């Protein structure tokens, strides 16, 4: 264990996966009262919070209790708003769009670091998934290695002989029955083999490896699609709906881009042209496809899906619900919430 940071990775040979030890996190702030929320703006005369300003829009800072930190990765907190009672779904649309640019900016900067191999943007919402602070926020981990799930997704590209999310999206658009929301930039569906009762994937229609490859209009529509989904979740059982939300995109790599033009375009917000992308992509290379996955633990309004014997011991999910039936209910809830 690193004396300074108390963070270390060990490799679990039986599972062929890393385990991260960050023992100082045992002492992190746990469900404070509103008056002691560390993510609120600082009130005049009061002790400074994590954001020592009387108001703010979106704030990002290094996690006080990091699971990863330089020179072996990164852990950041992304506070969506200074409104303690807001949520991703209730943000003004412009703020949600701004959040997409913040995600992109963090992906750009963290991904450029030599000690970051994969940038994972995520949000845990609700005590059911282990939230310790109610204030609306997400997190970003910069892993110093490629984690198993993104690695599996890249392996799926190889197995399917091309981009797996592109292939899955085509199937969902042909079947239609699991699609719950669409706009010009994306399609949201309960996947054919969903592990969670109301799992949903928000997938860009165009093949965009990462947020850096998106048109500005696509970012706006991504924000709209995510807000529509989480508002639909809240409407489904007429209660705040817990979930884990994870942005899946291309590994960072930490090396300079092979195309200076592409990097410059990313910094100014312009997507790389097809020609630039082709030039930067070796034939047959694997790159990922930007999509957002949400894993809500509820199977009814008051019952949780637990990861028990089969899920933990065998790695096989047992589901009480059919994705097609969940999709019908979720589609109706999204329409109701609109």
């Amino acid at each position, binding site marked *: 264990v690193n004396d300074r940071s108390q963070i270390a990775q060990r490799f679990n040979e039986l599972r062929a996966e890393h385990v991260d030890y960050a023992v100082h996190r045992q002492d992190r702030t746990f469900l404070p009262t509103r008056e002691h929320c560390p993510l609120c703006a600082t009130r005049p005369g009061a002790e400074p919070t994590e954001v020592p300003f009387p108001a703010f829009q979106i704030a990002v800072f290094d996690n006080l209790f990091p699971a990863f930190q330089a020179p072996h990765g990164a852990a950041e907190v992304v506070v969506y708003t200074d409104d303690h009672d807001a949520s991703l779904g209730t943000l003004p649309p412009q703020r949600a769009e*701004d959040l997409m640019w913040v995600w992109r900016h963090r992906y750009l900067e963290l991904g450029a670091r030599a000690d970051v191999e994969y940038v994972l943007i995520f949000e845990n919402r609700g005590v059911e998934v282990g939230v310790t602070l109610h204030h609306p926020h997400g997190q970003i981990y910069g892993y110093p290695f490629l984690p198993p799930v993104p690695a599996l997704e890249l392996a799926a590209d190889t197995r399917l002989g091309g981009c797996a999310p592109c292939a899955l999206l085509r199937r969902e658009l042909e079947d239609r029955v699991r699609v719950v929301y669409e706009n010009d930039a994306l399609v949201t569906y309960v996947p054919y083999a969903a592990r969670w009762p109301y799992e949903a994937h928000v997938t860009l229609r165009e093949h965009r490896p990462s947020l850096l490859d998106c048109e500005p209009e696509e970012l706006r529509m991504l924000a709209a699609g995510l807000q529509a989904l989480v508002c639909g979740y809240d409407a489904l059982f007429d209660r705040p709906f817990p979930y884990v939300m994870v942005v899946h*995109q291309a590994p960072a*790599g930490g090396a300079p881009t092979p195309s200076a033009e592409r990097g410059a375009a990313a910094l100014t917000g312009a997507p790389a042209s097809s020609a630039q992308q082709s030039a930067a992509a070796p034939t047959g290379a694997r790159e990922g496809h930007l999509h957002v996955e949400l894993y809500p633990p509820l199977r009814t309004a008051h019952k949780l899906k637990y990861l028990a014997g089969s899920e933990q011991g065998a790695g096989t999910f047992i589901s009480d619900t059919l994705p097609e039936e969940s999709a019908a209910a979720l589609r109706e809830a999204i329409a109701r919430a609109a």
Partner: protein
Amino acid sequence: MTSNPSGPAPADRSPLRSGRQGDDRVERYGTVAVARHAKTDGRTLILYTHVEAATTEGRTAAGEDTRAEGEPR
């Protein structure tokens, strides 16, 4: 291909102003202004604020490309 986000290129950042104490710089990115601060414990704090439409680096705050045809992208 992996997405290899490059490090910031000076020409692609737009210093706007140096504001309150602790600001290193303020730059613009897409629809947001980016202001960096150093917290008292040494951690970095970045505040992102929506910017109204104003042209910078050939791109409006809404992300619309305003550069003329033939200009480098």
